[in-house]
């Protein structure tokens, strides 16, 4: 027979897990007004994608944070995918350079959507998403809200980042599911 203390502990763990799960999968919408008078709307959390590079080290990975962003300039709303690139690979030792990413390809339920990448504008710093690993490049791709909505509703999304050499690296979600984007304005 379980003791009361055991029940309480189990319930506490379950509730904590549920809360953490809820926090982890349902980010809220965050908006801020930048110095240029633009309203930048993003979610409170990104999706973290990882691309393993086992040839360099067992745990070596390149990471890509990705999240939808809306920039509202005087009512003119434009949508983007923000992309933060990070890495736990010290390429300096091998004399390697990170490739220059030129496009993001999202496989949305198996159908590819390709997004040419550009630099995240300097005057829109700070980046719209927090990252636990420091990013070494912040990029963005113009997207339609329709695409954001379709991605949000997809049951499976995978990502590829194409670089300027024509090579592409497939990224998978690092911690499981594709984050719920339903809180993104008009997008979920």
């Amino acid at each position, binding site marked *: 027979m379980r003791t009361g203390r055991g029940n309480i502990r189990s319930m506490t763990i379950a509730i904590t897990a549920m809360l953490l799960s809820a926090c982890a999968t349902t980010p809220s919408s965050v908006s801020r007004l930048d110095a240029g008078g633009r309203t930048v709307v993003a979610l409170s959390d990104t999706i973290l994608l990882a691309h393993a590079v086992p040839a360099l080290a067992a745990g070596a990975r390149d990471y890509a944070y990705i999240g939808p962003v809306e920039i509202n300039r005087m*009512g003119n709303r434009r949508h983007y995918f923000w992309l933060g690139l990070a*890495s736990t690979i010290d390429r300096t030792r091998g004399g390697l350079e990170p490739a220059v990413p030129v496009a993001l390809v999202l496989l949305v339920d198996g159908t590819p959507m390709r997004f040419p990448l*550009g630099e995240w504008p300097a005057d829109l710093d700070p980046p719209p998403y927090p990252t636990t690993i420091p990013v070494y490049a912040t990029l963005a791709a*113009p997207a339609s809200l329709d*695409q954001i909505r379709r991605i949000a509703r997809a049951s499976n999304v995978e990502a*590829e980042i194409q670089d300027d050499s024509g090579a592409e690296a497939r990224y998978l979600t690092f911690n499981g599911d594709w984050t719920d984007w339903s809180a993104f304005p*008009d997008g979920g």
Partner: protein
Amino acid sequence: MRPRRRSPGGVTVFIVVLFACGGAHARAIDDVRLSRVAEEATIEIELGCAMRYDSHSPLDGNSELYIRMTLGNDCHLALRTGRSDLRHPAGGRMASLAEIAFDADQRDQAVITLRFERPVRGEVRQTTNLYLLTVVLGPGAPATPQPAAPLPEPARATVAAATPASPRREPMRLVRTLPYGDEDRFAIRLSAFEDSTDLDREALVPFSSQVFYVVDVPLGDHTMKELRMGFFPTEEEAGRALARLGASFPSAWIAVADAGEQAEAAEQRIDAAGKAKEAARDVAIAAAHETPADAGLSEERIATMMSEAKNALVRRDYARSIDLYSRLLQEPAGAHRREAREFLGVAFEKNGQPANARDAYEVWLDEFPDGPDANRVRQRLAALTTTAPAGERKAPQTTLAAASEDAPDWEIYGSASQYYLRGVSLAHDSDDDDVVGQSALLSRALLFARRSGERFDVASRANLGYLHDFVEDGSGDQALVSYAYIDVADAKTDISARLGRQRPHAGGVLGRFDGVSGSYRWRPDLTVHVSAGFPVDSPRFRATSDQWFYGAGIDLDNVFDAWDFGVFTNIQTVDGVADRHAVGAEVQYHSQRVNVAGLVDYDASYEILNAGFITGNWRINDRLTVHGRYRGGAAPFLTTRNAIIGQPVNTLRELFPDYTEGQLRSLARNRTAEERAGSAGLSTALTPRLQLKADVSWLEYNATPASGGVAAFPETGPQVSWGGHLLGSGFFRAGHLFLVGYRHDETESVDTDTVFVDVRQPVGERLRIQTRLDVSQRVANQNPAGDIDQWIANPMLRISCDWAHRYRVEFEVGAQWSNRKFPAALTPPLVEDNAIEQTDYYLQLGYILDF
């Protein structure tokens, strides 16, 4: 100590002014309509009162445009005391327009500031309709390149395994800078190219005038091809097209098409031999029409088909006409394409397919941007775009999800506002009380509702107000109805009608009326107008059946390319007698540098020129614009109803027992003076941020005779005014504006010199502070005892706060101080030292909510 007295006359005048301001309820900018044709955007600004366009600056390549206007007489009564307005127009994205601000000084000058999100090149036009201002924007100047994003320094200390050192990241700068999307448009990704054999070609028939093209999607070691259809200026428009595709393309989505993709698509469309062209066009268009893209049509066959297509259009067999024109346009080259593309749009329009018509016109303008017929096509497209894209008016917060799935049934927008108005004349003697001239709450509501359908567009507008008067024995509460009408437009027959309270500004209609007006576009360049109703003198009044009119007119557009003509007639009756029998004409010439508009309105029953008016602007070069105008005619406008002027009656029929109809008409003529007025001036850009405007004007009225117990009115003699001001803009930051000026007014009895300074300073993005000070010296020289000197100062402070582009709080306080000194020789003295000092102030506090 000098005794000070309050001037009863001054109080009266001040109360009258305040009453007028409170009773009126127009906004300086009544409405803003935007439309876009390819790279040309048109902004139509409907003004709350008559204003004459003088000049604008800078002329090119700036993100702010200042338009200098001269206020008409009705503005002084129509605009509320603030005489300032700020709009964030819905649909502004079509022209990258962020906001429109209106600021008027205490006199008759105003500046309309258009603030854009990117540099623009534009033209400003105005016809004889002084209630409408049109700004036409061409392709914008190249946007200032955004600085390349500095790569963030890695915070290696926080990471166990270091990220790459910064020198290794230099190649990252090769990544293109992210555009802000000004050049981006939207396309629909129809399907992967492998699926093209399964295309539902019927579903693409309505889109045959769109651009179809193929984009490569490199994926690993192979390249996939996507068939796309473009281009749409907004995602909402693309969403509507996607919704129309329905289940035929379940995997279609909306994608962003950047400038490079648009250019590639254009090349594909032009390059008939290209593989992509064949793939896209063959699949999407030729097959959709079930007409094989054969080896080409002979010139003879093309001529025959053109003739057949036009005949089909005339006999209203639009489907046949569309088929023929579409087939003809599959021919990659030939002189026929110009006409075929345009009339394909006309056929779509007549067939109740405005979206396809818009597409056809846009493609036409892409293909033939120049030429004498370009204006005509732009006008066709503007007419469609102005009424059709309901989504452009959607509030920013409206869900795009809904917009992309279903076209909205109705779009509703407007504003609500309340202002407390107070005007007080201060007592300068302790024995007297302050006189409250006005204490009132003015509530207003503006409501617009539109619905765009495949065939019928419906729009309605209501501009309502209610003035609650807190002053005992004041004017009392007033209900105000400026506009309340409903519009119905039939795209198939080109007939439109408007029913309700309205105020057209052309076609010989004098002003606001309750009734009906309609138009029929008989030919592409010829429109017939009719109207009938009951005139309404003021928004406060209800129409009565005692006075009514009917009229008709014809407009001819782009005759001899740059000329527009119109003729009209208008018959008006009051209390059963002829009130007005007008025939008139309007003409306008517009070119890149010259804009001239003229109007004549002749009363055939009185055989008098009621109004003759010509105005023109000539942009001599990019720094100098000159303008001039002349007006002659009756003042006030001659109608038989003028007979009641000066009589102790409110209606004409009250004079019937005492006067015959002929006598009433004589009385009307006697009460009507002849006006002659002219002005000329120049505007020049001294520096990119400093403009100078100078003008001289002249006005005189002739005498009117005594009759019917009403005294004669002597001629005024010439009233001359000249002056100028410096306008500085953006000196310290965007939105900063100042005016410093001087003006001299001279009549036969009074000379006035005025200096004024007006500063508008935004503080942050939300707060705007405006301060103004006018100081005048008046000398009245008709008193035999000597001159009467008067100093007048008018300070004003106005603060407004906006947020979310929807809400605004305004506070304005102003005062008038004057000191009038009579000649010492005046006997008996009016007051102890023959000096009267007077101080009045007003304030208003209110809010506006846009929805």
